[in-house]
């Protein structure tokens, strides 16, 4: 079967394997007694199950039948899964067991999965991804962005100041360590201002927690702002953005996600199709994605056009600020739109900044704090990718795989609430297991960025976006970065539809704002909106930006209108056979693109090596190809491969262990049957 042949394999997981941390709910069913029960930890099962249904966090549903096994063993299996999927302690997660074994075995050098973790150990892209665990990573990042007026600060070495900050971070040069130590007491979680990124115009992006000390509040706030102003080459002001007030909170986001899941997984499409769009709207998920994109775009305007430094302020400064800080940087800096850059961004703004992966992902299934903020960020990134397909080095497959990786409890990257927690927990663990740590700070867990642990080199090429036109890495000249300047020359009026000269009259481009005179003329139009009048600089900036063709190696801004913010179908539908389009979907275009891009690559390589014969050059090029689908030479005659479907490279075949139910013969025949059990009803029947 071609389907199996091209199954996208995760080296760590078999086709029907589900990581324990990916399990959302376990339901046991007894057909004969018509009983169902949701299994929690330490629960008893009063009947012998005939079927086990596992609801996964990635929208998959896996069903196992116990028709051929003894009744007692079925019960044991169910209880065991329920038990192990809900560990009572962080150290009981698989990663600890694995790392413990690895340390024990390292002397005898047993072959197995290569150790990832720290820099330089694993293969693949982990070598290039700065983890921001060291002083030098931060230093390099400052140099890369050309920031001046900032310095790497090491007062938190050994997590002496704060347990939720990294050991090294960047602060305004004018603030001395001594001051910082004093100030830190006033901040929630002692999370003082952290530098994220600097624009080439000198404006900086900074994130910090609230100042809880009411008495000191104004004074400290003033000092911080002054310091940030001093770090700006033009001594520009500081713009403060209170994220808690402007954006949906984490509970709302979680609620939206639960509704989205309900909509995508539990409700049969056949029944909701007429109401699909409004149901989707009612989840508010897309609305929230839009809200984050919109807010980030506004901050881009502040940084880029008004030359102001921006402070992201949030109570703890480790949730919404992760999303906003990352999105702003993805929009502003093309470096973060490469694979390595994107990974470093996640290290910098999520892992090191103390995003609470453990609680937010709810690996231990006991957290009240679950919220899919990281997914929201990936979704928002996907929107940008969808709108600017040639601006990103990675593909949507990469984003989906990255999301899945948060649920594999092998990697240390997405397992902890903070870097400190990793060190603390793993040191404890090492002591209890008699592991000699030597000089290391805690155990080295495999890093998720070591993709070779999960995928073969061939499969990893699916991460590459064929449309991306790479640019040589940003060159640093005299401390200023040249890479993300908008190039004026690429401006061409051919795309604009109308010569710019017409802007001088009454009808500038700005006048294209909605005016209320539809076909049915019912009211006089609103008073004229003069560009300089009521319109804010922000709107003007956006209008002007959108009137030009985007420089894909410069700033990109999201389109936010209703039709432009879309549902990330690959991510949410890939396990649903009903939603699959055989031999269709974007992937078939992607396939063609890859073939073309590959041919372009091969040919340009060939041309660059005029000495070598063209055919030899082609051969040597095959290994370097960045495409999954390759042009098999000039005579390539492949049509659309049969295994392609809209959910490629993921295969919903695994979900087909659902029984068919009665339906009209055609719809059954065409789209497969559907027997999703709503988890809610199950709970009620318990």
């Amino acid at each position, binding site marked *: 079967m071609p389907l199996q042949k091209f199954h996208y394999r995760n080296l760590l997981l078999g086709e029907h394997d589900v990581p324990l941390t990916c399990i959302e709910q376990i339901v046991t069913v007894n057909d004969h007694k018509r009983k169902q029960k949701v299994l929690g930890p330490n629960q008893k099962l009063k009947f012998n199950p005939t079927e086990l249904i596992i609801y996964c966090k990635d929208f998959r549903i896996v069903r196992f039948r116990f028709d051929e096994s003894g009744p007692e063993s079925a019960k044991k299996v169910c209880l065991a899964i329920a038990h192990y999927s809900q560990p009572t302690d962080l150290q009981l997660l698989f990663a600890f067991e694995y790392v413990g074994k690895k340390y024990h075995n390292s002397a005898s050098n047993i072959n197995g999965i290569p150790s990832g973790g720290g820099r330089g150990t694993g293969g693949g892209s982990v070598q290039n991804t700065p983890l921001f665990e060291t002083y030098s990573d931060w230093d390099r990042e400052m140099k890369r962005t050309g920031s001046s007026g900032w310095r790497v600060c090491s007062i938190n070495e050994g997590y002496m100041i704060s347990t939720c900050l990294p050991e090294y971070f960047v602060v305004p040069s004018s603030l001395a360590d001594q001051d910082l130590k004093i100030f830190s007491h006033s901040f929630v979680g002692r999370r003082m201002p952290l530098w994220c990124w600097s624009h080439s115009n000198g404006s900086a992006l900074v994130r910090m927690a609230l100042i809880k000390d009411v008495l000191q509040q104004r004074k400290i706030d003033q000092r911080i702002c002054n310091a940030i102003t001093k770090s700006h080459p033009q001594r520009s002001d500081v713009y403060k953005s209170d994220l808690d007030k402007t954006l949906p909170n984490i509970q709302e986001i979680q609620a939206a996600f639960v509704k989205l899941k309900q909509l995508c997984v539990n409700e049969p*499409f056949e029944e909701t199709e*007429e109401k*699909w*769009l409004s*149901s*989707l*709207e009612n989840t508010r998920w897309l*609305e929230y994605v839009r809200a984050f994109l919109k807010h980030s775009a506004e901050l881009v305007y502040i940084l880029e056009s008004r030359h102001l430094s921006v402070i992201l302020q949030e109570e703890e400064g480790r949730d919404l600020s992760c999303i906003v800080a990352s999105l702003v940087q993805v929009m502003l800096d093309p470096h973060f739109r490469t694979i390595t850059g994107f990974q470093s961004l996640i290290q910098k703004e999520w892992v090191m900044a103390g995003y609470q992966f453990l609680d937010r992902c709810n690996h231990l299934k006991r957290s009240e704090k679950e919220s899919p903020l990281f997914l929201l960020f990936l979704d928002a990134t996907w929107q940008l990718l969808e*709108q600017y*397909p*040639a601006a990103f080095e990675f593909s949507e497959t990469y984003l989906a795989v990255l999301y899945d990786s948060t649920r594999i409890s092998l990697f240390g990257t997405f397992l902890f609430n903070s870097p400190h927690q990793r060190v603390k927990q793993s040191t404890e663990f090492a002591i209890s297991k008699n592991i000699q740590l030597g000089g290391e700070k805690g155990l080295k867990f495999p890093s998720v960025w070591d993709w070779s642990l999960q995928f073969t080199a061939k499969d990893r090429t699916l991460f590459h976006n064929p*449309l991306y*036109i790479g640019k040589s890495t940003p060159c640093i000249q005299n401390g200023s970065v040249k890479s993300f300047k908008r190039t004026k020359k690429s401006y061409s009026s*051919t*795309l*604009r*539809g*109308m010569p710019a000269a*017409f802007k001088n009259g*009454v009808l500038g481009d700005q006048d294209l704002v*909605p005016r*209320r*005179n*539809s*076909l049915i*003329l019912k009211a*006089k139009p609103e008073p*004229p909106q003069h560009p300089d009048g009521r319109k804010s600089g922000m709107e003007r900036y956006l209008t002007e930006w959108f009137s030009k063709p*985007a420089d894909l190696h410069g700033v990109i801004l999201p*389109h936010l*209108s*209703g*039709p432009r913010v879309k549902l990330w179908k690959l991510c949410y539908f890939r396990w649903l056979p009903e939603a699959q*389009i*055989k*031999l*269709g*979907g974007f992937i*078939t*275009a992607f396939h063609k693109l890859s073939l*073309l891009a590959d041919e*372009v690559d091969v*040919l340009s390589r*060939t*041309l660059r090596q*005029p000495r070598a014969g*063209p055919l030899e050059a082609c051969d040597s090029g095959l290994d370097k190809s960045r495409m999954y689908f390759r042009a098999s030479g*000039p*005579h390539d005659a492949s*049509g659309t491969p049969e295994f392609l479907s809209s959910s490629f490279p993921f295969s919903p075949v695994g979900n*087909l262990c659902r029984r068919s139910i*009665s*339906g*009209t*013969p*055609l*719809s*059954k*025949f*065409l789209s497969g049957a559907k027997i999703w059990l709503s988890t809610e009803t199950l709970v009620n029947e318990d």
Partner: protein
Amino acid sequence: MWWGGRGQSFNIAPQKAEPDMGLSGPKSVQRTGMLESRSCQLGSHLASGCLPVSGLSRVQLLRPGSPLKFTPEEILIHGRDFRLLRVAFEAGGLEPQAFQVTMAIVRARAQSSQAQQYAGISLSKAGQSSGPRKPPIPLLETSEDWETERKKQGAGSWRVSPVNERFDVATSLPHYFWVPKRTLDSEVRRAFGHFHQGRGPRLSWHHPGGSDLLRCGGFYTASDPNKEDIRAVESMLQAGHSDVVLVDTVDELPSLTDVQLAHLKLRALCLPDSSAAEEKWLSALEGTRWLDYVRSCLRKASDISVLVTSRVRSVVLQERGDRDFNGLLSSLVQLLSAPEARTLLGFQSLVQREWVAAGHPFLTRLGVTGASEEAPVFLLFLDCVWQLLQQFPAEFEFSEFFLLALHDSARVPDTLTFLRDTPWERGKQSGQFNSYTQIYTAGYSQLPAGNSVNPQLSVWDWDLRYSSEQILQFHNPGYDPEHCPDSWLPRQQPNFMVSGPPSSVWLFSRGALTPLNQLCPWRDSPSLLAVSSRWLPRPAISSESLADQEWGLPSHWGACPLPPGLLLPGYLGPQIRLWRRCYLRGRPEVQKGLSAPTISGLQDELSHLQELLRKWTPRISPEDHSEKRDPNTIVSQSR
């Protein structure tokens, strides 16, 4: 005077001629944005409203005959095709003439809506002067065309019937059509009389697997057919198959009024100044129900294509008028089942056959006549095709831009293709009607003499209105030319013709097959089970067992490969999308970025590199390298 729109994606760029509308503004706007530019006809069928604006505070909606109360600074022209044109007078220095220009447009529109149903205006001087030219696709006006097409489809047991050569069977039917080989013309005539408006069963498409797809109008129940009539009707429906499925076409599909209403709502929603808020956009879109209707059409077409593919049988599409949804379904089924129909030429022939020749009342449905039966069924069809294009981007030779061009051509009055309701009207010499035109337009600037449309020209003569660069854009670069349309053909099944009544007759309705007792509704018709009441279904077989018996195929496509060549579209809620490039072209913010570097950019790069490579290394066989993906060669090799 300058021309421009809020939607910068559309541009007024007359390619080869200017609109002859008595309008004479400078039209020297550079052709911009290769993809979207197309010629524009002001004031004709396109305009649905015209709003002069003065001082940015006075607005008046102008309808034919209404006086303009002030000198406008700007006029807005709302197009029926979702475009919105803004014409500002000040910037172009045309202020003094503003009043006249506006009135001219309004008058031209009024005049056009009355007159142009009888005579299109020819945009193309080139077309007229160049004498007779060969149509780019067979226009199906001669029996040779029909015969060629019949052979191409391998419909061995069918023949071309000339029975309607004089339009005396039905004026809405073409001169020729296909009937079963064994049916005599006299029987055809006899049978057709018992169908609504004389539109009896005709072959639409012969599936290479052996099935036949037929279409016909509703039974004319008031007639009183004798036994021989009934036998003729039945044998034509049966078409030699032992298994007949009657498809109730309109079942589960929207009514014409629904379609029209949805289209109006969609147009209002997509206006640049639509009031729908961002976060309410989705429910507003849902509220138009347009996507819902697209979905029903796709679902039904998908079901029918399975009926045609899965067994050898006669599948008959039956719609009372046989001129709207029958054409839509039949075309969609062919697109889904036949790779040939997904080529540029194949698709154009398909539209010519199932819409133009089959007598879809374009003029009425597109609202050109102002008649009440306006319903853009054809545009609904184009939307369905676009959905397929989205879902299967590598399976179609034509691109979204081709569909857009076709969408816009539906209202451009330079050929007769879409300007007549029936083949009979189209067949008449357009010259005859010039006198009418002049009566209606007396007192107003005369249309230039010799304005008659060259009947030889059709919409398919794209070069009349589009530059060769634009025509290049009609090709989908993602389509694989190696995808040989012949290779998919299953082995031709032996053409066993059954004599005697069909052994099983089904009605396809509500997504399920119901056994029927007899084919025809009339009292005398022989019933299969000696039950006389019509449409009485047998006690329902459970759908499960019906499925097993009927399909004998696995219940999931996931496990088995699709029959070769068959596409099964997704039609669930999330799979039906809005054709943004078409409906949102008045909204620049939506259009921006839609033409980001795509596959064609890569292709250009590729051909450039190949060119370079050829210069460098004459050793490597250059033909092989260049022929395949160079867009120019793709064009020239397309048959």
